């Protein structure tokens, strides 16, 4: 009887597997094939729109490419900024919503989520207008209140251009992480929170000692999304600064675009893209190790 049901299971499984073949092929075609093509290109030099094999030379070139490392530095800046300005506020708002202290209204929750449904390009161009030196909202307000000395060249000053780019990122994606955290929060048994409140853990103590540990997995997911999103960022930089002034706001995605298209060097541009993938995988690996270490301590 057991053997019979096992055989039946295998037959059914094979049938189901057949139907999964199509999505698997789709995945191979859309994700894996372009990746392999990019890796092949990265082993070539592009000369006069023609690929010429040069092995790992492009990757060796990356090691001494100052612009690559500057771009990576900017990506890391975005990553840290995103964690501080997206995840932390998202967590705080999530706690406020789920504990019912404030933002109980569904409308208010929708307002937080609304920015992330707007196209990144549209958001970027809107903020570019707001940052305008003459007519932008920020400098105009500063002039109106008599604080002309605090006016900035928001997108022209290399010292603050990265912060200027990160602010709309924070504005746009707080809601996205908030939704994920809320769904994670909904999986926590309400009785645990009630018991914690009875025991006197309220407010900050409940958030830090009860909610945060219970949401470890969800938080690691949002951190992963934030980190990988920061490495592959492109739209906002393209729209607001184009990587400028100079290379001050250049990021890896933008650099890959400039090299591949503006310089028509697909080989080296692909090498930069593959390097982005490697860096993302390394960061994910590091985060996994940290998560395991934290779990072990628990």
């Amino acid at each position, binding site marked *: 009887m057991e053997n019979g049901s096992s055989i039946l299971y295998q037959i059914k499984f094979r049938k189901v597997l057949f139907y999964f073949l*199509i999505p698997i092929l789709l995945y191979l075609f859309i994700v894996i094939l372009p990746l392999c093509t990019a890796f092949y290109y990265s082993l070539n030099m592009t000369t006069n729109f023609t690929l010429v094999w040069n092995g790992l030379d492009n990757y060796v070139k990356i090691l001494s490419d100052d612009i690559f490392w500057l771009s990576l530095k900017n990506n890391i800046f975005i990553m840290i900024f995103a964690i501080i300005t997206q995840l932390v506020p998202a967590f705080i708002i999530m706690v406020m919503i789920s504990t019912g202290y404030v933002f109980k209204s569904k409308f208010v929750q929708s307002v937080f989520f609304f920015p992330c449904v707007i196209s990144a390009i549209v958001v970027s161009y809107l903020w570019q207008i707001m940052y305008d030196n003459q007519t932008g909202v920020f400098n105009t307000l500063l002039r109106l209140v008599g604080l002309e000395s605090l006016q900035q060249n928001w997108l022209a*000053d290399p010292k603050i251009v990265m912060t200027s780019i990160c602010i709309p990122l924070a504005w746009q994606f707080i809601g996205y992480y908030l939704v994920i955290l809320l769904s994670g929060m909904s999986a926590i048994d309400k009785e645990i929170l009630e018991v914690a409140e009875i025991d006197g853990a309220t407010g900050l103590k409940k958030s830090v000692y009860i909610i945060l540990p219970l949401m470890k997995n969800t938080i690691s997911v949002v951190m992963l999304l934030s980190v990988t999103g920061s490495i592959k960022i492109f739209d906002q930089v393209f729209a607001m600064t184009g990587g400028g002034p100079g*290379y001050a706001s250049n990021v890896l995605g933008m650099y890959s675009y400039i090299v591949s298209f503006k*310089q028509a060097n697909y080989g080296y541009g692909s090498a930069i893209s593959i390097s982005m993938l490697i860096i993302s995988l390394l960061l994910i690996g590091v985060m996994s190790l940290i998560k395991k270490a934290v779990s072990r301590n628990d």
Partner: protein
Amino acid sequence: MKNLKLTAGLLALVLAGTMTLSSCGGNSNAAGSAGGDNENNGGEKVKLTFACTWVEEEMRDQTYPLDIVNKYAQDNNIELSIDPYNSSDYQNTVFKTMAAAKNLPEIFLINSMDMKSSVKGGLLYDLTSYLDEDTAWADSFLPGLFVETTFDDKIYGVPYQFITNECVYFNKNILSELGYETVPAEWAEFLELCEKAKNAGYIPIALGDKDGWPLYSNLAEILCEYLCGPEWVAAIGGYTDQASYDDPKFISVLTTIKDLNDKGYFNEDMVSIDNNTQDKAYFYNEKAAMILGGSYTLTGLVTDCPEELIPSLGVAPTPRPAGAIDSVKAGIFTGGSGWEVAVNAENTQKQADAAVGIAKAMTGQEYARNDVEVGRIPVIKMENVGEYDASKIPVLQDDMNKLISQAPSMTLMNQQQSGAAMSEILYKKLQEIIIGQTTPEQAAKDIQAVYEEECKTMQ
């Protein structure tokens, strides 16, 4: 169970269909590059796809390029399919992607910066015989225009427009207020004008350099002519080792621009605003005394200018900088085509003939007449243009034409001889100098390093 199988089967079919459709998607018009694939084997109509930057919505009422080529195609049994792209997208991504994929259409516009790479990549049809056979057509062009499209004595492109890159548009009222009738021809006096404008609360020179090319094209290039000399310009564009970017003369070009910036003569946000509308805003609001541009700036400047400001618009050549080479006199321009019509190397004879016919239509009398009437400089000599409606010519065009005709010399825009990689590094390093992240000496070194790499493949 049966229903589940049916549902799963249908879903699988839908997915398979989606995958098939997505792989076959894309513009079928842009796929015709292989030999006779697009030719009607019946032998009558020739099918051509033309990739261009003529987006009808952006052309306003200046759709004559499209009208003329469509009419030519209709009259000459050509089935022409126009593939329009935004100019910036086309130059930065579309053309290069098509070229890399060896998937260019039968006829297309090409930027001069991509000419050399395309010729060396074997992508362009040799058009020399067409010009040799039709001498009347060849002789109708302004002298020297084919320099940008000629390699090893073979011609690979037909210029269809003529632009000059450097001039200074100014507000006559503001200059008059400061005691000037026009922009001074020599640098010392020009700097005095800038200082007076700054002290009077104006921005001396407005420019939007977010894209990088305006500062180089509208200023650095002409300074190269003055300070480095035409021989240096020609040598550097030929990727020879007879000129280098770490030459003190080129460093003086970068230093001159840095000096203007350090003195506060540019708008503070120059590197973050574009040169389409944002820099013009300073000019239209009469906050800026001058704005840099080329001959191509004129039409848009006049069209978008507030009506009350139009009478006070003026144009002058870029001033001659201190330290300029003696033989290079004040008032010169650099000019050239910038964009050409090219034909796919894989075309059949019939397709090439038809494509050249379209190129002739774009460089003919009717096209030139329209150019003149909208304020553009035609590629053919004025005596070949014939009659045109002078009342349609925009304000300032006569002034511009006079300046060009009185120019002591007109040399080829040197950036057109550079490849895309060189142009990119030149633009970026200039921006870095403006924001204080590098010095002219270091920038010159960095540019030279890229140039030496490019020389290995571009010679």
